[in-house]
Structure formats: structure tokens, C-alpha cells
């Protein structure tokens, strides 16, 4: 019976668990319930991905009202793939949360943490699988409010300013998206994405639609922290609790990249966005500046969480660069990197959180000598770091490989070289931390005997993510099949529309 409801379940599981968790309050039960919900949602996402790969897109009419009158959930290879990454990683971070937040969040606020976490998950899943442009905005609101709350929960008071900044920028982004959707609605009279696509095709080049496109692109770019609209991100990831940084870095910006892809390819159509409006050059330029500027910024920071945050902005640059190449391979590279980056960044932030758990600091010098004291944590950090750099046999290599070959396909030698140079910068910022961990002793005055390995409940999820990095670096059949389908569909979406009608 549940099979037909899979799309709804993906959103409803966390959505219904959140209020229940809030009523139950703080206790281990809440953690168990949240983790169980996350695990179930991941299984649902996996089933959805298998179904879409085998049978094509799934349409689910909420309330039994067919689109465009009612709201429809539309699951295809693209969003099922991102959904799997989001739910899978969030579940692992939930497992990790128990020990981590015990150290970093006031005990009275644990109930708030799990409630907000599940709400954010529900919001992100909703954004991913809804087929309705306004419904997307509603879920964007849910996930945004919940993530601002999550950032503000840390014991470090500086998280409040960071959360406030995030809130202001995020709200501006959401408002821009709403204005854009409003302009589209004004011109087309519909909110369903496929219906919008069909009707926009009749109106493109109208000033109202152009403005709608501009507002949506700017709004989504704030949400995905595209350079130069990224300035809310480093403080938010630095001062948020480690578990929250791990969750946000691997899900929130990734979902925003998905929204960008969905709006460009499904709703507006790549021809209109890239050939008529020339957005590909804008994206390419900003992506390359993001890769270099933010990798450089990462290399000169002293706080490891800030380093990883700047690295995230640079990695978003790679995703956008893939999209801006406007080829199937380029889009595949962008999509694979969404998935792979979620795997590596969650592992890295988990390792940093484990060091904080023992040392109480996330400065680079706090990592000195940790290679000996916390061998498993630092090994995890090193492998995930190699994945960020793009070393063969890690997931990061697959992303870079597709990206470089996409650039070479179009004879963009300069771009290919720039991608490789960007990886060199990643060696610098990851290398500094690894060097501190393995080639320095624990500083004087710090009692080395107290710096033990992190608790098992932190190590297990961390190593699950690390092993996933290795697995998807070696066996790429699932990822390439999913993104292959997704990008082919996206480029044919205009033709698909005609079939659907």
C-alpha cells in the first residue's frame, strides 16, 4: 500500500516526526525517533530513485486534485538522486548528533535541535520533490526558518550574529524567488512547473518573464552562496554547532543548486536562459572567481570550520561551472558533484566536530599532534580531504574527471587547466591541517593523555561517510546512471513536455 505514497512519505516522515519530537521533549527517545525517521526517509528516497530509473517520472497529486489545479509532487531521476544524498547524509549526521550536541548545545535546547533538524529535513525534501513553484517557496520557508534556528543554537554567542546575518540574506533570497514566481504567475496563470514551462515558452523574451528569471536567479544564487553573494555562509558555518555545519554544508546549498537547475532547465528552458539571455557566461565567470577567490580565502584562515566553509563556496563554484558549460557531460559533472560534495563535506565537518569534542577548539593549532591522539578521526579527515582535492579512488576524483572532460569536449583548455589549478589550492588548505595533525606534537601545556579518540557514536557515521567517499570513487555505476538519466531528461525536457501533453 505504501508504494504508491512514496513521494508523499519522503516529505511527511520528517514533517510529522518534528511536532511529535517537540511534544516529547528532550531525551534519548527523541534522538532515536529522529534517527529512525531519517533512516526510513533514506530508504524511501532509495526506492524512489530505483523506481524512477526503472519506470520514469512519478507524479503524485496531493488531495487527489490533478495539476495544474492541485499541487503535484514530481519525482524524476534528478530530484530522487539529490533526495537520496540529502536524506542519507542527514541521517548519518543525526546519528553523530547525540554525542556532538551534548558538548556544544545547552541540554535544555536539545528538543529544539531535533525539532528544527527534522523541520529542515522536511523542508529540503519538499523543495526537492514538489512539482509546484509556489509549493517550493513554502518548503523553502520551512527549511530556512529551521536552519536559522539550528545555527543559533550553539553555545558560542557569536553564532547569534551569524544566524542573524544568515536570516537577513536568506530572507532577501526567498523574497526574490517569491517575486520571480509572482511575475511568472502573472504572465502565465499557473504555478505547476511543467505547465509553467509550456506556457513560458510562448512568452519568453517578454520583459516580465525576463525580470522573473532575473529575480529567481539572484534569489537562488543567494541561497546557494554563489560568489559574490556568499558572505553569509562562512560565519554561519563557523559558529554553528559542528553537527549543524555538517548538515548544512552537505544539504542546504546543494538543494539550492538543484533549485537553480530545476528553474533553468525544466521551467525556463536552457535555450532561453543560456542562448537568449547569455547567462552561461555570467555563471562561468562567477564560478571561476568563486573557485579561486574562496580557495585562496580558505588557505589563509586559521579556523578550520571557516576553512571548510570557504571551501564549500569554492566547491559550489565547481557545480555552477558544470552547469554553465551547457552540455550533458557538464551538467552530469555538476550533479555528481552535488552528491559527492555532500559525502566529503559531511565527513570533514564530522571530523572537525570530533576534534572539538576532545580539544575544545577548531583552530589549526588545535589539530597539532592529533594524528597520534585521534588516529581514526584524522584518518577520516585525511581521506575526505583527498576527496575534496580530487585524488583518484575517491568520489571527488569522479566529479573532477567529468568536469575536466566536459571542458575538454568543448575545447575549453583554459577552463580545464583552471579546474586543475583550483585543486592545487585545495591541497594547500587541506594540507595545512593534515600537516599540523601528523607532523607536529601536541603543544606544551595540553595534557596529551586526555586527548583520546572520539566516542564510537561519532566515529561510526564519520567512517560511513568516508567509506561512501571511497565506494562512490570506485564503483560509479549508481551515480553515473542516475545523473546520466537526469541530464538527458533535462536537455530533452522540452520534448518530454510535448509527449506529456
Amino acid at each position, binding site marked *: *500500500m505504501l508504494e504508491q*505514497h512514496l513521494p*508523499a512519505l519522503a516529505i*511527511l516522515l520528517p*514533517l*510529522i516526526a*518534528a*511536532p*511529535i519530537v*517537540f*511534544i516529547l521533549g528532550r531525551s534519548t527517545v527523541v534522538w532515536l525517533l529522529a534517527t529512525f525517521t531519517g533512516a526510513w526517509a533514506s530508504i524511501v528516497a532509495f526506492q524512489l530513485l530505483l523506481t524512477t530509473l526503472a519506470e520514469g517520472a512519478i507524479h*503524485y*497529486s*496531493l*488531495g*487527489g*486534485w490533478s495539476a*495544474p*489545479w*492541485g*499541487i503535484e509532487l514530481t519525482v524524476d531521476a534528478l530530484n530522487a538522486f539529490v533526495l537520496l544524498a540529502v536524506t542519507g547524509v542527514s541521517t548519518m549526521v543525526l546519528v553523530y548528533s547525540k554525542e556532538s550536541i551534548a558538548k556544544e548545545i545547552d541540554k535544555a*535546547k536539545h528538543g*529544539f535541535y531535533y*525539532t*528544527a533538524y527534522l*523541520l529542515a529535513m*522536511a523542508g529540503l525534501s*519538499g523543495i526537492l520533490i514538489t512539482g*509546484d513553484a*509556489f*509549493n517550493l517557496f*513554502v*518548503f523553502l*520557508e*520551512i527549511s530556512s*526558518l*529551521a536552519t*536559522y*534556528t539550528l545555527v*543559533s*543554537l550553539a553555545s558560542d554567542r557569536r553564532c*547569534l550574529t551569524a544566524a542573524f546575518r544568515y536570516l537577513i540574506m536568506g530572507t532577501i533570497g526567498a523574497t526574490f524567488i517569491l*517575486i520571480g514566481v509572482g*511575475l511568472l*504567475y*502573472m*504572465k*502565465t*496563470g*499557473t504555478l505547476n512547473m511543467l505547465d509553467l514551462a509550456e*506556457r513560458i515558452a510562448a512568452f519568453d523574451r*517578454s*520583459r*516580465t*518573464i*525576463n*525580470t*522573473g528569471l*532575473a*529575480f529567481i536567479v539572484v534569489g537562488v544564487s543567494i541561497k546557494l552562496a554563489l560568489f559574490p553573494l556568499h558572505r553569509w555562509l562562512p560565519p554561519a558555518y563557523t559558529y554553528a554547532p559542528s553537527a549543524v555545519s555538517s548538515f548544512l554544508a552537505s544539504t542546504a546549498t546543494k538543494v539550492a543548486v538543484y533549485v537553480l537547475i530545476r528553474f533553468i532547465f525544466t521551467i525556463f528552458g536552457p535555450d532561453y536562459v543560456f542562448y537568449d539571455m547569455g547567462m552561461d557566461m555570467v555563471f562561468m565567470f562567477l564560478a571561476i572567481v568563486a573557485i579561486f577567490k574562496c580557495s585562496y580565502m580558505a588557505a589563509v584562515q586559521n579556523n578550520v570550520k571557516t576553512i571548510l566553509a570557504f571551501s564549500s563556496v569554492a566547491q559550489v563554484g565547481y557545480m555552477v561551472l558544470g552547469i554553465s558549460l551547457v552540455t550533458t557531460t557538464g551538467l552530469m559533472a555538476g550533479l555528481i558533484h552535488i552528491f559527492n560534495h555532500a559525502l566529503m563535506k559531511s565527513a570533514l565537518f564530522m571530523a572537525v566536530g570530533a576534534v572539538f569534542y576532545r580539544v575544545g577548539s577548531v583552530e589549526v593549532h588545535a589539530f597539532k599532534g592529533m594524528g597520534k591522539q585521534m588516529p581514526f578521526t584524522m584518518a577520516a579527515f585525511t581521506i575526505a580531504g583527498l576527496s575534496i582535492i580530487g585524488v583518484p579512488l575517491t568520489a571527488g576524483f569522479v566529479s573532477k574527471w567529468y568536469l575536466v572532460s566536459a571542458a575538454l569536449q568543448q575545447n575549453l583548455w583554459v577552463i580545464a587547466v583552471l579546474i586543475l589549478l583550483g585543486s592545487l589550492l585545495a591541497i594547500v588548505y587541506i594540507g595545512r591541517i593534515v600537516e599540523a595533525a601528523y607532523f607536529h606534537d601536541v603543544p606544551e601545556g595540553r595534557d596529551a593523555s586526555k586527548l583520546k579518540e572520539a566516542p564510537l557514536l561519532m566515529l561510526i557515521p564519520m567512517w560511513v561517510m568516508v567509506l561512501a567517499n571511497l565506494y562512490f570513487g570506485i564503483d560509479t555505476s549508481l551515480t553515473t546512471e542516475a545523473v546520466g538519466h537526469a541530464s538527458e531528461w533535462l536537455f530533452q525536457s522540452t520534448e518530454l513536455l510535448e509527449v506529456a501533453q
Partner: protein
Amino acid sequence: MTEVLIDLVLLGMLAMTALRVIFLKDLFAVVMLFSIFSFVSALIFINLDAVDVAFTEAAVGAGISTVLMLGTIALTGRTEKKNSHSSILHLVVVCVTGAALIYGTMDMPPFGNADNPIHQHVAPRYIEDSPKEVGLPNIVTSVLASYRGFDTLGETVVVFAAMIGVLSLLGTARPTNKRATPESGLAKHRVLHVVAKIIIPFIILFALYVQFHGDYGPGGGFQAGVIAAAALILYALVFGASFAHRIVSPRQLEVFAPLGVLLYASVGLVGMIKGANFLDYNVLASTAAAGQHYGIIIIELGVGLTVFAAMLGLFYAFSNQVERSNVQ
């Protein structure tokens, strides 16, 4: 012609209020102007025949949010701090955004034209078939609660999420140990006491009317929840928070808000158990029309409960903070 004139006057007032807000340094006056801004917007919505929206704007924008902003000022102080940043870049960004919006209006469908896409595509079915399919005279409620019921569930969760956010920051209000004494609140203002006692029952009655009459006229759970919360906020302001806590305690509100969301979602789940899609009300009763009716009444109750609990919960959290800062 008169309608256009009214619109122009109202829009002019709106622009003047907004300009004044930018230049004022006194935050108390700014909050009052915000309230006026919402009220004028509500009038514009009425002129556009969007009565439900106007109702919400008046209740939320002009009502509750003004109270909450005043609560914030009580905590932070009344005057704006000097801004040391240069604001030229900001001004440029705002001007570009404004210019883009004006550019976007140039191909806009003509204002109020019946041939516009928004009136021609999905709207005809809502207008012609909803009395049959959903069975409610108020089309707005049909769209919000049934056709697009999933959005409304989402909005209810947004309200819940906002409550979670504020409570996690301000801390949950715990009932004070001291007995409720008449000294708390505006005890000396006899006139306020008498007037409040007279009008509070009517406000609550009106809230119930709006809650249950939303199917027929403007209104529904959102507005009703806000109005009911306003009644208790008035009570708390005049007689003191500890008296209000005795009627509805903060702890109860922390249960009501999630319960409303669950109530809403459970209606959808029952539909799923009965073999239909999530939020399909047709299968809830023997006939589709009765099912729609039951479904909408229950989800509106869920919305009302969450909105009431969230609004009052936010007020409690603020007043608790103000009291704490007064003690220190």
C-alpha cells in the same frame, strides 16, 4: 473611476509611510507606522476584492506583529543606533532592484483585465466547479484548504517553525512562582480593566465565528487563531501575564502548536489509509461533498490551534524576557 482614485490615494499613503519609516530614528514611531502600513495595505486588498487577504493583513500585520515589535523595542531600546557603514553601495543595489521591477511591469498584463492569464487558466475551474467539487460558497477557502491544501499545511508548519526559532532564542516562559497579584499589569487603570472585561468575551466569540464561518465568508483558521491570541494578549497586557498564564500556560501552548500541525496532517493520513492520496478529503465520509466538508473543518481547526498557540507563545516569550530584564 472612483476605484482607481481610491487606489491612487491609498498607494500614495503607502509610499509616504514607507518613506517616513526610512528616515525616522525613533523606533516606537516606526513600529506605529508599520502598523499603519499594514492597515493601508489591507484597505488596498479590500479594494482589489481580496477580502480574505485583507483580513489576514489587518489581523497579523496591523495587529499581532505590532505587539511583537513593541515587545522587541521594550527589550532593545527605542532609538536607532548610528550606522557607521557607508550606504552608497546599498542604495545602488536597491535602485537597481527597483528599476528591474519597473522594467518587469512594462509587459505586464493590463491591470484588472478579465482576459488576463491569471483569470483564464486555472481560475475558471475554481470558480465554476468548486461549489460542486468542494461544496463551499467561499472559493478562497476551497482553494486554500482543498485544491492547494498542501501549501496550507506547509504554511502551518512555517508558523510552527517560527515559534520553535523564537522560543529557542528567548527561552520558554515558565510560570512565575509568585501568586498572580492584581499589582501586576496596568492595575491602576480602572477604565482599561472595565473595558477589557467587556470586550474580551466578544473578541473570543468573534474568533470562533471567524474559525467556523470561514467556509462561508472571509476568514478561517489563520485569522481566527490570531484574533483569539489577541484576546489573551489584551488580557495579559491589562491584568498581567501571570493571570493569562493561569488560563493558558506556556507549557500548554508548546503542546497546542505541534498538535495543530499533527491534526492537519492526520486528516491527510486518514485519506491515505482509506486508499486515496494524501489530503484527499473525498474519502473521509460516505459522499465526496460531506468528506470535503469534514476535512476542511478539521484542518482549519488544526491551523487555528497552531496559529493561536504560536502567536500567544511568542508574546509570552517576549513578555517573559521583558519581565526578566526589568528584575535585573
